[in-house]
């Protein structure tokens, strides 16, 4: 339920009485002084299994007495509602804030999942008044929210939106931020709970974190303090480590929420329910029954005007290192000991560590295909080549497609290849994980015209989230014809409900202190540990090619990148990669 009314002006407090909500604390008797410290800092998920880095630098865990529990919460939705907090968004005027973060916070409030005291404080370089930022926020919510803007609710919500102008590395600006936060705490009753959201370009992360540390904003005195960091977490292993180091010099790992919105998608969580909530699939989930696994993240779009970004990233950094490695670790991980943040992430890290991080020249050539699209047709319209896109170098070797074969070298998966492919300008937008099972040991139906295909279990992530099981069935005729049929389950036709946006799920989880769907430092580094050496090898090849051929238009300079027509399923080399093993990509 949402409170659609604007709160009435609070009455003047009586002498010696507690001040009303909305008034500054009065000396002598005030909720601020009496407010017990929350237990959250004590009950943050333990990081026992996570690497405890630079522990000695963290001094924020004050020995706070536990706050009394409210016994009336049990069984109500309040159990799923976090305590009031201030969401401080750095990069408040940016695209991410406008498109995703503000609409997500508004929708949470609309769904009654945020207490009315909650506040949003935008922090950016651009000079703006509170009212101007509110107008900007309203326009953003109006345009991008999945639920329509309700005027009465907005008016109430907007009272909790503030703006603070400042530079990310300017100590006086951060001192002003401290004062502003304390003022909002007193005004709205947010009890020192803070969620810092870094919605800036990654280059600003370190200076913001440093400034937060210098002004003591990382310390959990009365309430909890958490920081949300957007991907990308570094652009290679080294930079990821450097970023983790600088963040963890200031914050404890338990306060850090690295957000990859892919993990907030409903089906990714469904994947865990499917694997560990059903008894019949897990016994088959190993090298004895599984022939191979295919993971596809296909996009029909191009780079959509983000040439500068994509030239730096490529498909490996944009999709492979994060989304695909996440899917791979979720599908291959061992059952966690509990459905709890660190237990889950421990298992995911183990999968990533079981992938050989050493990429020799021969391994990279045999097991990886790097592709780039050239002009072609995307659905019903012609599209230009990647090199002809804006802000893209005409000799760019950046991959818009990558297909690779990996092996998870552990007891469960030894010798089971995992084929991964992702690309832009493919025929359609489709993400799925396909588990291909082995053929039956003996084919009894030899007289049939065609052998049935082996069983397959496909977990579709988008579109049409669902699960497909392929098995053989007899064609109903006199003879013995066997044909493969699909048993197709669509979540949409069993549960016709609007799933929340990934950002809503993740923001709420961060406020509740549940880090299950966020990436831990060692997880980020382990994923980079696999992808980074591969990118290094490509750079070496490119450098060698450039040295060998002074003429950039010389075709030999491009031989390391395989081109494919836009609107096709990637270069032929990708087909050869899998056909070499006697298998083929699933037709999507």
């Amino acid at each position, binding site marked *: *339920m*949402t*409170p*659609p*009314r604007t*709160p*009435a002006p*609070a*009455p*003047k*407090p*009586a002498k*010696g*009485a*507690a*001040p*009303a*909500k909305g008034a500054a604390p009065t000396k002598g008797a005030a*909720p601020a002084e*009496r*407010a*017990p410290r929350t237990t959250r800092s004590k009950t943050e998920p333990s990081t026992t299994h996570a690497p405890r880095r630079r522990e000695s630098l963290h001094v924020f865990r004050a020995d706070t007495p536990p*706050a*009394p*529990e*409210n*016994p*009336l*919460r*049990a*069984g*109500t*939705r*309040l159990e799923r509602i976090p*305590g009031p907090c201030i969401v401080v968004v750095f990069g408040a005027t940016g695209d991410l804030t406008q498109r995703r973060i503000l609409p997500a916070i508004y929708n949470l409030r609309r769904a*009654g999942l945020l*207490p*009315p005291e909650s506040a949003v404080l935008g922090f950016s370089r651009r000079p703006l008044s509170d009212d101007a930022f509110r107008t900007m926020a309203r326009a953003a919510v109006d345009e991008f929210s999945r639920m329509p803007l309700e005027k009465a609710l907005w008016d109430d919500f907007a009272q909790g939106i503030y703006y603070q102008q400042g530079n990310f590395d300017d100590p006086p600006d951060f001192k002003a931020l401290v004062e502003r936060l304390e003022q909002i705490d007193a005004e709205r*009753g947010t*009890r020192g709970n803070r969620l810092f959201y870094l919605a800036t370009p990654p280059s600003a992360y370190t200076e913001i974190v440093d400034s937060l540390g210098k002004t003591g904003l990382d310390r959990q005195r009365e309430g909890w303090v958490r920081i949300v960091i957007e991907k990308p977490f570094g652009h290679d292993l080294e930079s990821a480590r450097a970023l983790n180091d600088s963040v963890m010099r200031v914050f404890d790992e338990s306060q850090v929420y690295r957000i990859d919105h892919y993990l907030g998608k409903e089906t990714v969580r469904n994947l865990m329910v499917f694997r560990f909530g059903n008894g019949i699939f897990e016994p088959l989930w190993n090298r004895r029954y599984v022939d191979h696994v295919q993971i596809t993240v296909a996009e029909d779009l191009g780079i959509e005007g983000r040439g500068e970004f994509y030239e730096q990233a490529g498909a490996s950094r944009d999709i492979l290192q994060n989304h695909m490695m996440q899917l791979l670790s979720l599908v291959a991980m061992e059952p966690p000991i509990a459905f709890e943040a660190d237990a889950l992430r421990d298992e995911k890290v183990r999968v990533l560590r079981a992938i050989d991080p050493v990429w020799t020249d021969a391994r990279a050539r045999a097991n990886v295909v790097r592709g780039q699209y050239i002009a072609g047709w995307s659905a019903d319209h012609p599209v230009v080549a990647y090199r002809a896109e804006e802000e893209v170098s005409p000799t760019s070797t950046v991959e818009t497609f990558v297909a690779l074969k990996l092996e998870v070298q552990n007891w469960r998966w030894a010798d089971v290849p995992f084929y991964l492919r992702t690309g832009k300008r493919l025929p359609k937008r489709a993400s799925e994980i396909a588990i291909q099972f082995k053929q039956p040991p003996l084919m009894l139906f030899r007289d049939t015209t065609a052998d049935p295909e082996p069983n397959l279990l496909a977990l579709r992530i988008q*579109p*049409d989230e669902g699960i497909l099981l392929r098995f053989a069935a007899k064609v109903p005729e006199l003879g013995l014809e066997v044909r493969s049929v*699909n*048993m*197709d*389950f*669509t979540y*949409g*036709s*069993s*549960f*016709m*409900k609007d799933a929340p946006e990934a950002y809503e799920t993740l923001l709420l989880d961060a406020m509740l202190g549940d880090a299950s769907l966020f990436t831990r430092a060692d997880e980020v580094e382990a994923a980079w540990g696999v992808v980074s050496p591969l990118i290094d090898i490509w750079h070496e090849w490119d450098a060698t090619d450039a040295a060998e051929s002074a003429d950039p238009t010389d075709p030999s300079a491009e031989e390391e990148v395989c081109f494919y027509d836009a609107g096709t399923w990637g270069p032929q080399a990708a087909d050869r990669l899998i056909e070499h093993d006697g298998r083929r990509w699933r*037709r999507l």
Partner: protein
Amino acid sequence: MSIPIAPIAIDTTTTRWHARASSISETVTQLSRIWSSAADEAEKTAMDPGARAAAQGDPRLAGRLDHHGDTRIRTRTSVLTLVVVAQRPETAERAVATVAALASRHPSRSIIVSPGDPDGPTTFDAHIYAACHLSTASGAEVCTEEILVKTGGELSQHLATVVAPLLIHDLPVVLWWPDDPPFGSRVFDELAEECDGMLVDSGTFRGDGARGLAGMADTVTAGHSVHDIGWMRLNLWRELLAGLFDHPLLTTELPGCRSLRVDVARPGSVLRISKAACFAGWLATALDWTVEEPLRASPDNDSLIAAFRHGRRLVPFEIRPVGNGMGASLQSAGSVMRVEFELSRGRASTRARVTRQADHLLATADWNNAQVARRAGRLEPFEETPFLAEALDRTAHDPVFERALKRAVELTAV
């Protein structure tokens, strides 16, 4: 009696079938025939090159075509069977409308049974409706079935035997009894045995509702999972009152409870106490109060009074009937209109109130006469759809409700 099966209405997104049967076995046969006919139709689409070409060009069908361009066989993804017992014709109509509103959210088989005159001749008459709806947004197809059964004579006393053969194998069964259910009767108990969860509305219990509460508590004790619309209507009241005590200043005050008063609407002569008793029962179990004196008329006969015990304190409780100026769509007899909860500890006194204003609730808390917390929320409209949806989402036991109900029954001392 058998009527040839044919789709009765085909538009671009929904296909419907209808059949009629005069026995249970014929109902089962007709259901099979409907789905064979649906599959045939899908197969024809698959075989006809023209239809295939048209389907391939139709974005709505894109998700349903396999890689040969064939339409996949129409699958029914049922998630549960809903059994509704509608004792009155108007209840049956209401139930049909409510179930239809939920069809796409909970694709299910709904069996709506209207038991007729038990003294008349034994009769069975069923209308079977099936529909497949293609969602324009996702391209996913949702199929639902609705079986409207009218029974007469002795069969009306054996509804479980009517329903059992029509349940979908191994899926959860939810029983919805919209009118005053005959708790403890043979017909009710037999049906309850067939079901995994049930939905009733304590707001419709006869008289003051106390006897109904006791019957419902017995059903819970027998191990059935019961959802009560009356209790669900209290959710927002509980949530707002609980939210006030999230304030750090007030959480510590909770042990100092002094009195509780619940005002309920009394549009006629009957004072229905089920909701007020459940609310008090909830607060009592959450705060460890036991019933010291059950409800009785106050000396001036204006209200009902009782007392809880919390440690050495006695907490007086009063249910006060009030007239109301609300529209009939927003309240009924026994609707909670206001909750007033007073606490004191040392020199601090707290007063928490939740008040209904039209379709909104406003909760405020004063600490030494200064307002320190305020919450507001909007009540669900008076229709049953959202509550049925919630009951279908969760068939598990609700321990908070079950404890509150037990205390409420102690309070009414039936």
